[in-house]
């Protein structure tokens, strides 16, 4: 089962910020500054948590994981005002 998560972060040091940003690109879609949307299995969620735990400063930085519930076969409404949020799916890619 997969879950949809919104991950937002507040990192007080530019070097760590870049590291967190780069790590997050491997897990989800970059929606806005410091906001990612991730469609993850439980296993991937723990992988992500483990990785982020090692990257941040535990007193100065903060990362929020907002759980939007199961993603399989369900559509979550993300409305945007202004620029459109491109829809991204897990699927085979052919170039």
């Amino acid at each position: 089962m997969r879950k949809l998560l919104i991950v937002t972060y507040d990192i007080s040091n530019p070097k760590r910020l870049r590291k967190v940003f780069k790590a997050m690109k491997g897990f989800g879609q970059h929606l806005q500054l410091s906001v990612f949307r991730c469609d993850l299995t439980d296993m991937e969620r723990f992988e992500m948590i483990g990785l982020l735990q090692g990257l941040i400063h535990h007193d100065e930085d903060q990362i929020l994981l907002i759980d939007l519930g199961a993603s399989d076969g369900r559509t979550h409404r993300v409305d945007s005002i202004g620029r459109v949020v491109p829809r991204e799916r897990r699927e085979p890619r052919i170039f």
Partner: protein
Amino acid sequence: MPDLDPPLVPARMLNEFVYCPRLAILEWVDGEFAPNADTVEGAVRHASVDRPGYRVRLRQRTPSDDPGADQPARAPIEQIRSVELSDAGLGLIAKIDLVEIDRDRVQPVDTKKGKRPHVERGAYEPERVQVCAQGLLLRSHGYPCDSGILYFAGSNERVEVPFDDELVALTRSKLGELREAAGAGVLPPPLVDSPKCVRCSLAPICLPDETRFLRDAGSPPRQLLPAADHTFPLYVQQPGATVRKDGDLLVVFDKDEKLGEMRIREVSQLVLMGRVSATEAVYRELLRLGKPIVHLSSGGWLAGVTDGLPHANVRLRQEQYRTADDAAKCLRIARWIVVSKLTNQRVLLRRNGGDEIPESTIEGIRHAAQAAQRAETIDTLRGHEGNGGRLYFGHFAALLRQSPFRERFDLEGRNRRPPRDPVNGLLSFAYSMLSREWVTTCRTVGLDPFLGFYHAPRYGRPSLALDLMEAFRPICADSTVVRAINNGEIGPTDFVERMGSVNLTDGGRRKFLRSFEQRLAQEVVHPVFGYRLSYRRVFEVEARLLSRYLLGEIPTYEPMTTR
């Protein structure tokens, strides 16, 4: 060859063996491992205890620590993290999370990610045996050790496990049993309808309920494996394209123009077709993750697979080779394969051909299947396969609803090398893609894709993959071709014709790959097990069931047929 230096049993394996003997043998002897949420969460929670270190901390003493003694209220306790110990006499090895030394008392502490279970003796048997094994190791190294601690991180509670005579005897006897089971060369039977299987990360490999169901019948299996996939292939076929790695992304470039990207985590395999390339960083990362890189010509001809080390399950490959040498066994497997293929061909014609297919054709294919079931030699079997195939392809054009494909389809049936009309071109390409999929499935499961039972091994031909795909030619390849044409996903402009041979254009290939992938992601109700799963998952289950048959666990291997 005698094993002069028997391997040491890891204490962790002893835990698994007490939990489920089959699990321990699958992991330890056959080298099967599949992480899942529980194992990854465990690793994350373990990260801090796995770092070697030493510290002294103060702990409140309770009167029971030292009855009658006049001690200060707080006393130092030494803690050593990540202690690796082994002992050849015991035949054990363990990496102990934490060893606590309180003056002359030494205790191993094992961290568990969950909450403390409310059971007799404070913890389940596998964990108690594991920490006892750690204690025995400490003892054999000369430390006085008569109890251990299980620390449950989920509820932040410590449970003391006394190493009484009963637990020590149990630990020693389980150690002996594990050794014996590992040496016996057979897999212990699966647990029966056990709630333990539901959270077991190896359930999709072990297939406990399916194995039991095919062996002894009884109640249908629970669905312990996920219906759909979380990872997918990345195909690169645009001539001149290059794949590069950027962090956790694979990025595809055409010269300096970025065509797109995919997260490595979501990639199951990288398929490189024709004149494309990938950087060393891409290769290295995919190999590290155990994800294959498949090399094909632009027409889909398999040139090779870049893969890491071969699968550790040597016993399975040995059985595969032994079986391939046994003509009678080969014939039996070949019959199952041909019968399933003919059955599926008949179903596809009957379902999609409507009135245009004469009843005599449908019956003819059925008779071919019945005759194949009784074939006494591989040659007569091939004859029945050919008879059925001629009837099938003789009426295949009736399935196509779109001119000009239909008119041009050769009524003599299949033609290839090179294909002379668009439909035959598509069929050839679809079969290449299907055989590639089966090659990677065989490798995942630990089978050698190049030695089959029906198709003769020939240079560069993945015979086993060809065997296993037979039943799926009609339902995964032919049906995809029919649908792509009938839905207009593929049109006449997607082909180029040169000197009598017909090939897909780059764009046509891309469109067809998309249709093919849709088909593999489509979920079907498994006719025997009764649960839904995608065709790609079906392939993996089939390959694992063949392994179970080869290892003698189930009496037959009959490929999936649709109704």
